[in-house]
Structures are given as C-alpha cells and as structure tokens.
C-alpha cells in the first residue's frame, strides 16, 4: 500500500502532473472564492477541455480543482459574509464576526490550517480504507449494487438541504431524465417523443453544464445587483504557531472524522459535514454561547469538516463507483467519458490510476495551504471580479464544451433546457445534488435490477436471500420512514408527559 502511494507521489511530482495539480488547485481556490462560481461549475466546464489529455492527468487536474474549490469558499465567507461555496456557510457565522473585529488574518489562518488538517486526516482514511473496501465491494452481486445505489439516492435525498420530499423528487427527476433513448439490454427505443436526436438519450456533459453552470448563470444574472464590501486584510501574517493550534487538536480531529465519515456516506455533500461538525463542536464546547459571535472553535470545526468531506467522498467513488457528493457525480462522469470503468474493479484494473488520484488529493491539500497562506490577500481582491464580464464568457465555454462532445448543436440546446430546469428547481428550493446523482446512477440502477432479476426464477424476491442487499434496503426504508417514527415517538412522549402531570 505504502509503496503504491510512494510510487504515485513520485508520479505526481513529475513536471506535467505537478503542473496540473498546481493549476487545478489554484483555479479551484479562485472559483471557490468568487461568490456565484462553484467547483462543480469549474469541473463541468473543464471536462471537455480534457478530452485531448491523458486520462490520469485529466482526473488529477479535476481532483485538485475539487480540493481547491472547497477551500476557496472560506475567503469570501470570512471577508464578505458570502460563502463562496455552500460548504462554507458555517464558516461565515464565526469567520466574519472575527474579521469584523479586526482579526481577519487570524480567522483566515485558522480556516486555512483547519482545511489542511481536515484534508490530510481524510487522506489517511482514503489511503487506508480504499483498497480493503474495494476488495469487499468486488464480492457484491447485482442485488447488492442495486440496493446500494437505491440507498445512495435515498440518503442524499433525505439528508440534502431543504425538505426530504423535494430531495427525493429531485432524485426521481434525475432518474427520469436519464431514461430516454435506446435501452441497451433489449435494443428498444423509449421516451424519445419521436426525436432521433434523443435516440442516444441526454448526454451527461450537457446535462451537467446546464444544471450546474447555466442555471447558476441565470441565478447570478437575477442577483447581479448583489454587492458586498469586503473587510480588508491587515499586515499580519496568515500563519499560526503550533502552540496556537494546541487547544484545537481535539476539535480538529473530531471534525475531520465527522467530515470524512459523512463524506463516505453516499451522496451527502460537504455542507452537511460542516453543519454536523459545527453543531457537535458547539455541544462539546465549554463556551457554546460564543458560537456565532466570532469563535475560533466554530471556524475550525466547519473548515476541517468540509475539507475532510472531499477525501471521504472520494472513497465510495473510487471503491464502488458511487458518488459521495454532487461533484463526485461529475468526476464519475469524467471517468466514463475517459473510458475508465468506475466500480470495484477500478482498483484491480487501474491501480496506478487510482493511487495517482489519491496522491493528487494529498498534494493538492498541501498546495492549497501554501497557495492560500501565501496569496490570500491577492485572492481576496480577485473575488470581486466583475460578473458582467465573467458570466457571458462562461456560457461561451459551455457552448464549446457541449458542442465538442458530439459536434452537434442538439447538445447545446440541452444545456439551455437543463439550465432552465435547474433554475426552476432552484427557485422551488429543490436541491440539485440528488438530481445529478439520480441522473448519473439511473443506468446502473436499472442494469443491476435487470441482472438481479435474471439471476433467479424468483425475480425481484430473490433479493431476500442477500443479507448485504437487505441491510442496504433496510437503511433506505428506515431513512424514508424516519419522519413517521419521529412523529410517533414525539406523540408517545407528549402522552406520557400528560399522564405524569396532574
């Protein structure tokens, strides 16, 4: 394991891969810092440009972008009180008040340091868990896969921000939009409405560009008058001594483990990690009342967890081909576009490739720390880039990316259609993460269901003979029934309280 990792690190430190990691991290930090731009947007836009690249280098670049984008959000969260990425929302609660009282450098130093530690702790889990989990996943049959994908969809839908019903609706809509076209198992065309362009279905890249990029462009245009005055950074250095970190070790470790663990859960993004870590840090704190007023512990918890989430979320992606977050769904799409078959056999067939991704993740975290510590003052100026100039240029990239896929304008229209759908869903507060994950996983879900049913004469009921699949189904059912159970428990509690009181 360690020799594999050492070999991969050796590869990453050769000039070209290192350049891609550096570039990816820097670009990720930039889009993360600019409110209105996201990591998902950057990676989706980059995907078509990587068609001419070596597959390993392309994915290395995108993983570095992922790490950078999650970290970059802390700058605008602290200085503007506008989280550059959704995962930095919790950082605004304490980072901005600290910056307001003249401690911007300290708030940034804490955030950047916590991001590094969180990222590296998750990296340890990524290195240690990936291979054994991958080996375990190779024992899965179609029913285990079907149940796991179903569980991933239910989990992301229920834990994603907003209402559970809307999360489930988003997932179901994602699956529905993945169904049109030729069904490869029996060669039947379905749901094409007689359009030959739809024979191959909606391609993943235009859908991603529409949902993540075009809908964001429309939303940014709607909010074009949104302005914020950043807090200026003083002359102090953005680096804390080890002694200053001493009292945060427990919080750092706990929040990083929470971030990693939530990341491993299929489909749950970095925002949830930072919320859970923040709430846990507050309940463990001796001064919980200070949270939200510019408290160091809040910043450390939020930033350690959201960066740890990236590493955690890479684990199910690498070992089972299940995206741990919406950005992982884009990475899954990138693997497919680069003709790399995701799933448990990825480690068996492409071990060097997987280790290169893990090494890139670790190096990107260290580069993120160096870049942000050295240049946060300049990045802070860039975050107020004129969106009137940026948004139209981003749309041009969308057009080029979508057209380049099959050299047809139909895919560009798909970008516009899904941009409109994505914007409509945003307006109705329907989360986009489950939509994208549903779209990506729909084919696997159907294929595994079909394979499972073909295995036995008992049809669907043969799933009852598979304990792992049943466990996954049980978790899904419990997640779906949880609101009812909660209501029942609450009523019982109230009834008991009524009986006790005279």
């Amino acid at each position: 394991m360690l020799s594999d990792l050492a070999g991969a690190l050796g590869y990453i430190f050769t000039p070209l891969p290192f350049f891609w990691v550096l570039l990816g991290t820097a670009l990720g930090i930039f889009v993360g810092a600019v409110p209105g731009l996201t990591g998902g947007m950057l990676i989706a836009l980059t995907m078509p440009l990587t068609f001419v690249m070596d597959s390993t280098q392309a994915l290395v670049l995108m993983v570095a972008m992922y790490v950078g984008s999650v970290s970059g959000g802390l700058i605008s969260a602290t200085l503007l009180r506008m989280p550059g990425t959704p995962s930095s929302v919790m950082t605004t609660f304490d980072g901005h008040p600290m910056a307001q009282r003249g401690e911007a450098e300290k708030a940034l130093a804490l955030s950047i340091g916590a991001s590094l530690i969180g990222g590296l702790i998750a990296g340890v889990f990524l290195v240690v868990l990936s291979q054994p989990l991958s080996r375990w996943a190779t024992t899965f049959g179609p029913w285990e896969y079907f149940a796991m994908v179903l569980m991933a969809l239910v989990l992301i839908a229920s834990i994603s921000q907003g209402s559970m019903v809307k999360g489930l609706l988003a997932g179901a809509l994602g699956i529905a939009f993945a169904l049109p076209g030729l069904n490869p198992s029996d060669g039947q065309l379905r749901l094409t409405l007689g359009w030959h362009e739809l024979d191959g279905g909606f391609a993943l890249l235009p859908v991603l560009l529409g949902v993540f990029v075009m809908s964001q462009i429309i939303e940014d245009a709607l909010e074009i008058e949104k302005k914020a005055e950043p807090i200026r950074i003083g002359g102090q250095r953005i680096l804390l001594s080890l002694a200053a970190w001493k009292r945060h070790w427990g919080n750092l470790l706990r929040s990083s483990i929470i971030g990693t663990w939530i990341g491993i859960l299929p489909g749950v993004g970095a925002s949830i990690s930072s919320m859970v870590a923040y709430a846990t840090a507050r309940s463990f704190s001796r001064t919980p009342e200070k949270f939200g007023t510019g408290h160091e512990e809040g910043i450390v918890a939020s930033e350690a967890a959201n960066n740890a989430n990236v590493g955690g979320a890479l684990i199910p992606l690498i070992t089972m081909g299940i995206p741990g977050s919406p950005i992982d769904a884009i990475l899954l799409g990138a693997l497919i576009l680069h003709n790399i078959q995701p799933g448990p056999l990825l480690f068996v067939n492409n071990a060097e490739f997987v280790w290169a991704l893990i090494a890139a993740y670790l190096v990107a975290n260290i580069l993120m720390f160096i870049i942000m510590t050295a240049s946060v003052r300049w990045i802070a100026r860039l975050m107020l880039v004129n969106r009137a100039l940026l948004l139209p240029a981003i749309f041009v990239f969308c057009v080029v990316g979508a057209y380049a896929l099959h050299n047809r304008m139909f895919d560009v229209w798909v970008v516009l259609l899904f941009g409109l759908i994505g914007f409509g869903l945003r307006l109705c507060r329907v989360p986009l993460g489950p939509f994208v994950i549903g779209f990506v996983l729909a084919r696997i879900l159907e294929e595994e269901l079909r394979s499972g049913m073909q295995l036995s004469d008992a049809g669907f009921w043969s799933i009852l003979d598979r304990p792992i699949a049943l466990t996954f189904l049980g978790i899904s059912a419990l997640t779906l029934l949880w609101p009812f159970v909660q209501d029942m428990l609450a009523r019982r509690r109230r009834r008991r309280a009524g009986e006790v009181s005279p």
Partner: protein
Amino acid sequence: MAAAAEGAGLRGRLLRIAGASRTPLADFGLAGCVLLFAAVIWMEAAKVPPPFFDPLGSAAVPEGIAIVLVVLAAIVALRAVLGMPERAGKGAIGFRARPDIAIGIFLLAVAYVGVMQLGLLGFELATIAFLAAASALLGRFERRAMLFGLAIALVLGVGGTWLFTGFFYIDLPR
C-alpha cells in the same frame, strides 16, 4: 368544535411528518409540472412493446418512476396547501432582484445558439456579438462596462476561436 380540533390535530401531524412549504405558490407550479411530466413518461412508456426474454422490459422502470413522481408531486402539493405564505419582505434579501436581466441573458443565449444553428453567423462572429451584448446587459448598459465588454468580446471571440481550434483541437459550430 371537536372536529375542528381533530382537523387541527391532523394538520399538525401532517405538518410534522411532511413539513410545510415555504414557497407554496412555486410548489403548486412544481407539482403541476411534475404531474405533467409523469403523464408524458407514462404515455410514452405505454408505447414500448412488451419484453420477450428480459424479465424487466424497457417500460417497467419508466412506469415505476412515473408513479414515484406522481406520489411525490402529490406530497409537494399537500405541503403547499399546509404551508403558510412566506412572510419575509422583499427588503430581506438586501438587494434588488433583476428578473428582467435574468430573462434577457437567457434570451440572448438562445439567440446566440439559434444564429449558429441556423448558420446565420459562425462561432467567431456570433461569440463576439453575444459577449458584447451580454456584458452590456449585465453591466446595465453603463458606458465603461460596455467598452470593457466589447474589448473582451473581441479578445475572447478571436483568441478563443484560435485557442479552441488550434490548441485544444475542438471543432466549433460553423
């Protein structure tokens, strides 16, 4: 009286389980669109011939998803009925939303793709025109923003075409 209390109790339970919508009007629209979409899926799936050897067939999953969509749309509509209209004032967001600009930018994007689809303009010229018009709109037609936008449109239009075709070897719409 008792019935009213029971109704309030039932409403309370539904609220606790399903939650109340904070955007009831939008949610009614959403539920309607989803129901319509589910109906289209169901009708299209009904046209698929039955399977011969495959136990599942090509229509089962679309039909199943259509049912799930109908159920979820019904719950979304129920939450909208239960929900109170959002009380937050317009000033709460701290800036003026510009739906006119959002619609404008979308229409410009449609026009940009449309002129290339119809072959009226090639990528280079269409891109220059789109970038100049879109940056002027987003910059609310301020003179400085328009000049900057035009300069960037020329650089990105000409330079971008060279970059995509000469460096990344990507075919562009003609």
